[in-house]
């Protein structure tokens, strides 16, 4: 009897297997070059177009909503919703003329309304209301006339802790209405929008590719209320694609809008972005044609480079505009380190002692030196009016050319000896340091004795790569300086790096990565002044501050760059910041033909699929090199011409 049941079960199972194999045999493996099949790993919480803290949101919005301008595949600013534009002599008033055939569509593809200049005014209005969105106002608050005051007025009005006598007079609608009179963005007519700035901003165009300058159809967003941006039917679209569906934690589907004014430039007809958290699965899926591209982690790279079939397709992506750098803490609770960090020779000793190549190899075993950077601002992003890259200005050009040779143990020791004679008294006592317990954070503390070896606390994260990196740094520094002179204490942080380590200053030495907000060195250097937003080492260099200020007031790019370059050089040659490597530059395999999609270091354009071409076969490393060479040739010609 049991046998009968068993045999029955087996036959059912076999039948199922056969059915499945029949069903599946029908699928073909050919890749559809009109569809882009991508992935994302972090979910967006909301698709309100004006606040996009992570890449996923940017990938979606950049394709479904256009701005005034965008970048082309060379990274140059070209018309998008604005056909043409001009500015006044001192770059403080910018006027944009919109194309007349752009329209808003809903998620079903039905036309709703034309895109007008008023939509850009309303976009700014939306961004300026802190209750509507958490947009990063820091870039534009002091740039657009009247915007900062308007924003602060609303914040003060809503602040429950502010005494009523100090608050602006309501009702809120009255304050909101002030926008039209006081803020420097106006619709001069139906298709002309004008921005009035508080000061000359020659690089204003690079702001316009960010999400803060997107248009908003006010009637629609008011109607949606708090539901705006929570699902595809709670948004309107004026971009190359329309968001057809959004299944949370699963996928986005965008389809080409055939009525788009530039529809003939769009060859990818459908974009499907799936949520996949497992890195190993994406490689498999790419090989089977289920994904257009995949990235490869360190060990996957090693494995596939040897693979006879797939090895040829492993390519290295472009560097991004994000830079990583190390920094010492000028306000460390550790008195030993504090005594040393004020000494420039010590900082330069660190600069020359760090073996960045060995450290970076952890993450990128191939082409490691390519990924290193010796600068704070990224290359290939800021070009002056003559087409010269900012990073070719003195002294940055020379700093760049040091390459990996910043690692010079002999030189490091020389600097260190000088520091020792200045900071110690010859018998191992560190001047200005005291013995005692040093607390860094809630759970970490150690004893100092005010004598050599210098105890230096390096803080790192919990992942195995971070731990390995920390150990390499410890070995590195102790080997160069001798463990009788320096003792690197490793401290692992739990929780959030910024909130638990950097903001409270619970470290002696650490690194972080920093993004580049717009195409001018001011975007980073302004944040590195005394008390600046990314001045995590908390140094104070008044000459640097003054130079940055002076540079920011120049109108001509070459004049700005000259001064900015000197300022940046000050930080690097003074050991205040030790640049490490560029972001991006990951390995992957893809069927996307490189250099066809828009390019750019920041903002939304670089995520657009408009103009992208796909290939049926994966791109080989050879093809990539060829296309890369062609591309840079063309780029040089353009910049020169």
């Amino acid at each position, binding site marked *: 009897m049991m046998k009968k049941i068993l045999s029955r079960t087996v036959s059912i199972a076999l039948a199922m297997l056969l059915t499945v194999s029949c069903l599946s045999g029908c699928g073909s493996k050919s890749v559809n070059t009109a569809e882009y099949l991508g992935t994302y790993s972090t979910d967006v919480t909301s698709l309100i177009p004006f606040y996009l803290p992570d890449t996923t949101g940017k990938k979606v919005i950049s394709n479904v909503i256009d701005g005034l301008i965008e970048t082309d595949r060379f990274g140059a600013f070209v018309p998008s919703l604005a056909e043409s534009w001009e500015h006044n002599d001192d770059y403080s008033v910018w006027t944009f003329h919109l194309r007349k055939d752009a329209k808003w569509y809903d998620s079903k593809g039905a036309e709703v309304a034309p895109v007008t200049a008023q939509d850009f005014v309303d976009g700014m209005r939306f961004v300026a209301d802190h209750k509507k969105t958490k947009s990063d106002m820091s870039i534009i608050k002091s740039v657009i006339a009247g915007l900062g005051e308007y924003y602060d007025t609303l914040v003060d009005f809503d602040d429950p802790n502010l005494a009523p006598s100090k608050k602006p007079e309501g009702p809120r609608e009255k304050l909101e209405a002030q926008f039209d009179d006081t803020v420097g963005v106006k619709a001069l007519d139906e298709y002309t929008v004008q921005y009035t700035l508080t000061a000359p901003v020659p690089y204003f165009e690079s702001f316009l590719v960010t999400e803060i300058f997107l248009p908003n159809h006010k009637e629609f967003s008011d109607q949606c209320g708090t539901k705006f941006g929570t699902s595809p039917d709670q948004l309107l679209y004026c971009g190359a694609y329309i968001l057809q569906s959004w*299944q949370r934690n699963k996928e986005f589907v965008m389809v080409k809008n055939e009525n788009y004014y530039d529809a003939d430039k769009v060859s990818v007809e459908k974009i499907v972005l*799936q949520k996949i958290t*497992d890195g190993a699965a994406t490689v498999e899926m790419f090989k089977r044609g289920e994904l257009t591209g995949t990235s490869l982690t360190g060990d996957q790279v090693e494995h596939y480079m040897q693979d006879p079939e797939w090895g040829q397709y492993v390519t290295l992506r472009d560097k991004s505009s994000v830079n990583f750098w190390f920094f010492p803490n000028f306000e460390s609770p550790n008195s030993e380190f504090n005594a040393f960090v004020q000494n420039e020779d010590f900082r330069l000793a660190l600069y020359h002692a760090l073996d960045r190549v060995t450290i970076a190899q952890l993450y990128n075993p191939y082409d490691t030196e390519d990924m290193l950077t010796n600068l704070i601002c990224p290359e290939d992003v800021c070009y002056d009016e003559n087409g010269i890259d900012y990073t070719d200005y003195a002294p940055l050009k020379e700093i760049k050319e040091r390459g990996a040779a910043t690692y010079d143990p002999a030189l490091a020791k020389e600097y260190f000896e000088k520091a020792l004679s200045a900071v110690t008294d010859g018998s191992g006592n560190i001047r200005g340091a005291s013995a005692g317990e040093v607390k860094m954070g809630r759970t970490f503390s150690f004893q100092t004795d005010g004598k050599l070896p210098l105890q230096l606390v390096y803080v790192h994260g919990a992942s195995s790569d971070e731990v390995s990196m920390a150990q390499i740094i410890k070995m590195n520094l102790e080997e160069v300086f001798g463990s009788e002179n320096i003792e690197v204490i490793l401290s692992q942080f739990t929780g*959030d790096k910024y*909130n638990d380590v950097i903001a409270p200053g619970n470290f002696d030495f650490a690194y972080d990565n920093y993004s580049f907000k717009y195409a001018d060195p001011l975007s980073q250097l302004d944040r590195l002044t005394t008390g600046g937003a990314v001045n995590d080492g908390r140094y104070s260099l008044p000459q640097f501050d003054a130079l940055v200020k002076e540079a920011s007031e120049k109108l001509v790019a070459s004049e700005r760059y000259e001064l900015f370059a000197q300022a940046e050089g000050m930080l690097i040659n003074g050991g205040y910041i030790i640049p490490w490597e560029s972001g991006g530059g990951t390995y992957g395999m893809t069927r996307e033909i490189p250099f066809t999609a828009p390019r750019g270091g920041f903002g939304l354009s670089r995520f657009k699929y408009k103009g992208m071409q796909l290939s049926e076969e994966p791109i080989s490393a050879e093809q990539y090199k060829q296309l890369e060479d062609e591309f840079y040739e063309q780029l040089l010609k353009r910049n020169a011409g």
Partner: protein
Amino acid sequence: MAKYIFKRTLQSLLSVFIVVFVVFLLLRLMPTDGYFTRDDYQNMSEAEREMYLEDIGAVGNPIKLFGKFMVDLFHGDLGESYVLQPHRAISDILAEKIPYSLYFGVVSMLISLVLGLLMGMAMAKGKGGLPDALGTGYVVIVRAVPSLIYLFLLQIAITGLFKIPMMFSERNPVTWILPTISLSLSSIAWYAIWLRRFMVDEENRDYVKFARSKGMSDWKLMKSHVLRNALVPLAQYFPLQMLLTISGSLVIESLYSIPGMGGLLVEAIQEMDNSLVQVLVILYSTLGVLGVFLGDILMVFLDPRIRLTEKEEG
């Protein structure tokens, strides 16, 4: 019986209430800078941060907030998520996700019940022989090897062999099969081994020996008597397991990209989405308590000898 049910219901409600209240308070003890990313923290002024925290109910008098929460709950208003899916009604979020987890959970549980019980019976009947050895081998592998390993290998192997897409896709019916089977593998082992154990226990009972000596066939004996008795201790867990399938399988759902309930609670806690965490805690604790309760009742139905209350002395 009715009196027992009433008493039990009250106890259950009290347990759930205590759990919810404690979690509510704990959530509000968390440091508030966790609600902001680094950029947000720097870009917002102190006033703005305060206002945001008040909006999402992270600060304020906890007792008052709790009261408001309970009142809303009784009106059927589960509230809105604040962090994971801002301005979306939690009832919508759950309505989207529960069907997936429920479908996969229930179907795979039925598969594991049928296959597991069959396997258990085969193992008990052929105790010491080949079926028993094979079954034990299966159970040991499935329980000892970390599930992520064999599930992932299975995913790659089967999808590669049959050329089906690796990820779950609603539109493609074929992709519903493998996750369901994968989900049931572990439970098959569980049911098989436990049923085998209880059946072997029963085999040694007097009534079995008696029935056998009277000429009853092994198969009839198993089906009508042994199985029924062996199921009783197992049945206790059926309602609980069935109800808790709603919570989704973290592993399977992330392997196959199924947008179910699997990672929701973990993500909600990590992102400090308090309103969502509270609703999920109520949901799971209610289901858990209910499941145990129903399990006890089910046992009584299966075995009338079981008494849940003290026998009243006449």
